[in-house]
């Protein structure tokens, strides 16, 4: 629900009402039509009423001019969800042949100010579709993610930009970028999702055509990240994602997963570091639920009395101890497996 309270502006920043500006005296402001009893009447501020009265007036005459850009900007600043003002502004920019880089500069400010408003991002898409200059956008998005590293609109915009232009130069730095984002916060699922998009959904790009090598690289990457933070569902989902997308049996990861599904005191002490299977970091809270679950999946797939017995045992430990919130789910998995 749009219930964002707008930054209150100091009186000095508040521009004069349009009704007080001589240069607007030729426009007839048009009141909003309301019948006697509107649902949830909004007690508009004087600023908002003034700006929207003039906006309705301008729409009526069909004027598309420089001053309409001022007016729509004012309406948008007062109500960034006003999609008609955005639409009219866009058409005005086109009609005037306005420099779109100037508009994008303004959008840099508004995007950060109204980060959660769909329209800001939508408008930006329209502009970039016309300028066909996506490269600077990547930098802008990176800056904007500094404000909110999980903002859905920001990430969607990046995904759209890459897929829409599908330009080799654009993709070039993407893996490094997303790695930087996961390094900053290994639990940022938006970054993990983006990585999946870049590696597995963007087609076979230069340098990425040797899929066996790419899969190996991704497995190494995700295993390394799990070793740093074992209880990170984003990384485990990513691991499953790689395996599912490439039809790799979960059992291939058995050696890696086992230490994460085991109590630390039961782990054999070893000085040998297996680079393929990095061990949990010291102090990790083990066993962790995603690993137990993963191991149970391996046993379930293996099947037979022995496999199912071991899977059921693991599910019981999830239900009773390590993941009690999903007790009913683990009990259901057990019933389901034993039924077949």
């Amino acid at each position, binding site marked *: 629900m749009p219930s964002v309270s707008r930054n209150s502006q100091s009186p000095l920043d508040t521009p004069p009402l349009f009704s007080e500006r001589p240069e607007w005296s030729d426009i007839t402001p048009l009141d909003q*039509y309301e019948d006697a009893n*509107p649902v*949830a009447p*909004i007690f508009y501020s004087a600023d908002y009423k003034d700006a929207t009265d003039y906006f309705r007036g301008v729409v009526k005459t069909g004027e598309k001019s420089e001053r309409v850009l001022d007016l729509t900007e004012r309406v948008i600043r007062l109500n960034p969800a006003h*999609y008609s003002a955005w639409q009219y502004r866009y058409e005005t920019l086109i009609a005037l042949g306005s420099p779109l880089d100037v508009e994008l500069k303004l959008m840099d400010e508004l995007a950060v100010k109204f980060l959660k408003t769909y329209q800001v991002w939508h408008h930006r*898409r329209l502009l970039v579709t016309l300028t066909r200059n996506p490269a600077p956008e990547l930098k802008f998005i990176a800056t904007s993610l500094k404000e909110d590293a999980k903002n859905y609109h920001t990430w969607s915009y990046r995904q759209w930009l890459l897929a829409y232009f599908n330009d080799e130069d654009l993709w070039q730095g993407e893996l490094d970028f997303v790695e930087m984002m996961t390094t900053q916060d290994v639990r940022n699922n938006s970054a993990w999702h983006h990585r999946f998009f870049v590696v597995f959904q963007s087609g076979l790009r230069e340098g990425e055509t040797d899929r066996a090598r790419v899969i190996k690289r991704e497995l190494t990457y995700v295993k390394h990240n799990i070793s740093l933070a074992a209880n990170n569902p984003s990384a485990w989902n990513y691991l499953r994602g790689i395996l599912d997308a490439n039809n790799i049996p979960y059992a291939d990861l058995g050696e890696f997963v086992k230490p994460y599904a085991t109590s630390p005191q039961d782990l054999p002490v070893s000085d040998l570091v297996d680079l393929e299977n990095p061990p949990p970091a010291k102090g990790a809270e083990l066993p962790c639920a995603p690993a137990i679950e993963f191991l149970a999946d391996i046993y379930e797939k293996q099947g037979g009395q022995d496999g199912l017995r071991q899977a059921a045992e693991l599910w019981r430990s999830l239900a009773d101890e390590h993941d009690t*919130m999903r007790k009913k789910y683990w009990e259901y998995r057990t019933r389901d497996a034993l039924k077949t």
Partner: protein
Amino acid sequence: MSEERFHLPPLARAGHASHCKRCLSGLPGSQSEVDASKLALSFYCIGSLDLLGAMDTTSQTDRQSWKDWIWEQQTKGRHGSGFRPSSFMTPRPGLGSSETYTEYDTPHIIMTYTALLCLSILRDDFLKLDRAGIINFMRACQRDDGSFSIVPGSNETDLRTLYCAFAISHMLNDWSGVDTTRAAAFIASCRTYEGGYGQAPFCEAQGGTTYIAIASLHLAPQLQKPPLTLVERQSTIHWLLQNQDQSGGFCGRTGKDADACYCFWCGATLEILDAKHLIDANSLVRFLASCQFKYGGISKAPGETPDPYHTYLSLAALAMYPPGQDVAHNEAASWRIEPIDPLLNATKETVKWAREHIPA
């Protein structure tokens, strides 16, 4: 955890009802953003009263004036008919009966869906509904890729609008305004490796859009049933359940904080997938109980400001997941919510009314 006993406070029914009534009677100027989505806000307010069984605490006069206002928003023109969010782009003295809307004051597909539900809650007879016009309007909104724009000709699109087109078709019992095959292909393109759906192709799985994808697939009678393969269904259920965190509430994306609205979006999806029994309902109730604001209304998380959207969706979640006998004790009665239809997101009684009165 569900094992632990916890003291369940009563559901502050009267407080939540008055929060919604207050919003219906007026909003401060700081809420001007509601201009562009006022019919949706009306739905959350009126819908909350419906879930609480509190419609009879409103006056006949109020109900009539709400209906009149909603019908005022039905508008016709070159893209067909439907409902606009409010009269925010309509200058005085309004449109005469023969006039048509401008390109800046067209119907809006999400508002059309919420208008039909509001009018059903208000038990309207729908004699004024321009059914053929709505079919044309949906046709004008569907894009080549199968998705729908919020208003005709706009590039603004995501899965929400597709769900609204499906829900409207279901209520009209007329699917001639939508190409369900193309729409289903668009839904499939939004599926992610996590088992949920994003708002557009390549986007991260999110609880709200996952509800919308799954509900849409189940609404359309033409699409194959069940719409998901066994493996897909399992992974969607798994992802949805994973979103219930230690607070008992659901988060909308992996690793985010729990938020009351996702108790509905994830909970309703699980019900549609026949997996309702797998949720830890008592923990969910405990979380929603803690999101109650002391002066009425429910907020997205404990200690936040309440709003009609989170109030409605929390109540709707509770309609599906009431507290068990073991925790409700003497407060059980206060937690009773009218049964809900998870596909259309309204009470069963209201959906029955819609299905009986909206089709031609």
